[in-house]
């Protein structure tokens, strides 16, 4: 029970915070901005992603113990959900996700030479025992360990074999089970580290001269804002750009991520939704001066318009993208995302007083 004195103290602290919010350097705003990101998006989303991998792992087990069409479709659904979950967190490329090559072990992409698929197919073909346990799988190429490798092992052309049972199906199930366990272990680790009170979140929330990663709230806020621009850049450079190819009439839909399981648009959509929800969670409006007050809702509007157009697109892209209309839609989405990225990286950063210098932003 708080005593009256404590209540006064809390009220006073709250009042002090309010005063502080008006300070010109935006320190308190920056702190709150970082808090919003962590509590409003990063922690719950990484936990949700881990949960989606638990479900996938269970459904792989359930299907493999009694293969039938319903079980297969359940597994396929869980795979799509896990990919969408990944797309919603992949842009948070700081802290736990980038430790120990976790990002690449979850999903090795871009994979220009289809290393992941070829190595996974080879392991299946040669019945390579070393992919059957998490421990030995961890010693293999990162491209064989995660979501990318699961596609040829379980989906793609594997459906008939898996449904018919037999030695090939048994091996695929063993490999998929090891990947599933590996994914669960990695994603649980990331979620738990983000949730820890003394982990990376504490570095973001308590900057200072002795903090190994962040010297000021502004630096921490800059890292957090970077998630937005990184997210849009990933969707454009890695998921959309390659399939747009050299222009209308020359799309390269075969380069689409997760094309063979029909999840290319799932990824792109979830990636844009993730960025949009992240932006909303940051709650930038109260931190913006009047002249910039329009920014938050304007960026939301742009992202909604990209999502609306995305909703009109259909798989498989290898067929649909042949039509000029569909190509133009994807090109339009690309342009919109580019505009949002520029605004978030420049104007929004200026408005939030966390602009990053020309050389620092994009050095070489």
């Amino acid at each position, binding site marked *: 029970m708080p005593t009256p004195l404590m209540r006064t103290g809390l009220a006073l602290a709250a009042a002090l915070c309010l005063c502080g919010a008006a300070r010109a350097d935006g320190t308190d705003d920056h702190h709150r901005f970082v808090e919003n990101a962590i509590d409003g998006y990063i922690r719950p989303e990484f936990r949700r992603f881990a949960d989606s991998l638990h479900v996938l792992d269970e459904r792989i087990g359930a299907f493999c113990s009694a293969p039938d069409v319903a079980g297969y479709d359940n597994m396929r659904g869980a795979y799509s959900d896990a990919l969408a979950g990944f797309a919603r967190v992949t842009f948070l490329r700081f802290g736990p996700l980038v430790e120990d090559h976790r990002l690449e072990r979850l999903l090795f992409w871009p994979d220009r030479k289809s290393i992941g698929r070829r190595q996974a197919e080879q392991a299946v073909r040669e019945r390579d025992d070393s992919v059957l346990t998490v421990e030995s799988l961890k010693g293999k190429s990162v491209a064989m360990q995660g979501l990318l490798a699961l596609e040829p092992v379980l989906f793609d052309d594997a459906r008939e074999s898996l449904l018919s049972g037999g030695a090939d199906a048994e091996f695929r199930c063993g490999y998929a089970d090891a990947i599933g366990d590996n994914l669960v272990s990695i994603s649980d680790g990331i979620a738990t580290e983000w949730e820890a009170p003394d982990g990376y979140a504490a570095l973001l929330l308590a900057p200072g001269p002795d903090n190994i990663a962040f010297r000021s709230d502004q630096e921490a806020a800059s890292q957090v804002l970077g998630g937005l621009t990184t997210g849009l850049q990933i969707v454009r450079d890695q998921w959309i*750009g390659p399939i747009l190819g050299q222009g209308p009439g020359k799309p390269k839909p075969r380069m689409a991520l997760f094309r063979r399981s029909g999840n290319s648009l799932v990824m792109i959509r979830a990636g844009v939704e993730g960025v949009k929800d992240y932006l909303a969670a940051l709650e930038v409006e109260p931190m913006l001066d009047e002249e910039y007050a329009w920014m938050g809702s304007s960026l939301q509007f742009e992202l909604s318009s990209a999502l609306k157009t995305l909703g009109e697109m259909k798989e498989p892209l290898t067929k649909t993208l042949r039509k000029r209309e569909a190509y133009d839609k994807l090109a339009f989405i690309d342009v919109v995302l580019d505009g949002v990225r520029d605004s978030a990286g420049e104007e929004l950063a200026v408005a939030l007083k966390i602009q990053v210098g020309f050389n620092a932003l994009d050095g*070489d």
Partner: protein
Amino acid sequence: MRSTEIDRRLLLAGAGAALLAGLAPRQLAAMEANDTLFLSARKEGDSGYAVVVFTPDGKDVVRVPLPGRGHDVTLHAASGRAVAFARRPGTFAAAFDVLGKRAPVFFSSPEERHFYGHGVYSPDGKLLYATENDFENGQGFIGVYDTSDGYRRIAEFASGGVGPHEVLLAPDGRTLVVANGGMETHPDYGRTILNLPTMKPTLALIDRLTGEIIACHDLGESERLSSIRHMTIDGHGSVWFGCQFQGGKTERPQLVGRLKRGDEPELMSAPQDILRGFNNYIGSVMTSRDGETIATSSPRGGQVVYWNAASGEILGRDRVVDGCGVAPRPSNDFLISDGAGELLAGGPGDGGKPAVIARNSSVAWDNHMVGFRV
């Protein structure tokens, strides 16, 4: 050392008279009033790019507009030839005369190659060596260009690694030193790193006459994520290099090292405070005019750190927000450029307080700067 000399006496007498006759009054006045000029690429306004030659107090002498963002400029002092390269993955290069005596010549990397933003001339200025990416095969190359034939590409050889970045010429005039950053990229995926789990940066020594790789050093498995990018050669002939760490901020590895000819590369021992101040990123590495001081800049950390070239000790630090370009001044300290259009004078003797020399808020100085004597 990239502080280099155009022979003033030669220029002012004999053959030089004819050259000087072709100079516009502005360039002539700049030459007479200054013994040092500087070169750098910059962004102008919202979307313009140029490479400029400018005086120590920041006044433009020559300005060459570029079709896109530039990176480093390399100079052949005796002839006044210079080339500004596109920033990766750009494909253009602009060859120009540092005193504006000839119209600039633009040339490109070949099909399925792009530049990395750096290059170096042969001692006689006849050949230009440029770092290039064979992106379909993920291999680094050195392209050789003939300066007397419109910068026609006449040869190439392997760079000794993936993602070659800066290339320098060793004091022997024959050995190229190449920083292979180790990171594979492909224009289909923008600047995305394609090989983070397997990247392996190297420092390669290459015989420029034969293309033979004489030595290929690395920093060991523990430093695999430290991409070696920029270098300078000190007054003792050692190569100093700066790295960009590709891991997270919870690690603060050593980023500055030195390679003595015939030895293995060694990393310096900067204290934690300096390492945090680098924020895992070195943007430029440069030797002072006397060859005894090394400057290493970090725009991401906002600091420039000075090292004793002989002992490897840290001599001082300046805080410069977004400072990246560093070039030697005659006083053995450095000119520093930043992304806010400022030029500052800094060095180990400034007590941590670099002096602002010029400010032009309509430009953003790009990563590198070169100084030369006239």
